[in-house]
């Protein structure tokens, strides 16, 4: 009988202590398992400053109109 009372008191005390701790102190919020909570992330800006390249064909083999052979 004494051991049964001890077991009931043991369970009751542990339950009360954990309850008081949880309700007294706010635990850190649990992190989401899959989704990242990063909300203020800034997208990297790509500064496109490369000028449009102009390909000049110096020795073009295209026949020129009016050229004398």
């Amino acid at each position, binding site marked *: 009988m004494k051991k*049964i009372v001890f*077991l009931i008191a043991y*369970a009751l005390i*542990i339950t009360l202590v954990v309850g008081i701790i949880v*309700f007294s102190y706010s635990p850190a919020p649990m992190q989401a*398992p899959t989704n990242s909570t990063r909300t203020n992330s800034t997208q990297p800006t790509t500064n496109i400053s490369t000028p449009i390249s102009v390909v000049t064909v110096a020795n073009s083999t295209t026949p020129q109109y009016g050229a004398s052979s």
Partner: protein
Amino acid sequence: MTLTKLQKYSPLALRTGLALVLLWFGFSQLKNPAQWTRMIPDYVSGLASPTTLIYANGIIEIVLAVLLLLGLFTRITSALVTLHLLHITTIVGYGAVGARDIALTFAALATFLHGPDEFCLDHYILKKRSPSSTNSV
């Protein structure tokens, strides 16, 4: 002094540790259910409101924890805790939290496999009925 004498406290420590985890999560869900609603799987979200489901889950976890602490219906309780934690592990998925949940699941499984120890109420209740049936619950 030999440490062999301490072996009898091992199932009690395991049950107490599991119960502490369940109590913490249960009370946390009762305190702030909105924080836990995102953990609800889609297939049960139509049964009731998310807050109601979290309250129900929290109460169930506290009841299971108290039963574990008392050592009452130890086998049935630890089987339910094992299935519950296994389900949570599948929800949480692969990661640091999931790895810890797997360990908790196996801890609950160990309690189920061991059955009632000498610090369980089952031990004293069933001892009065028949001395040889303490490992059946």
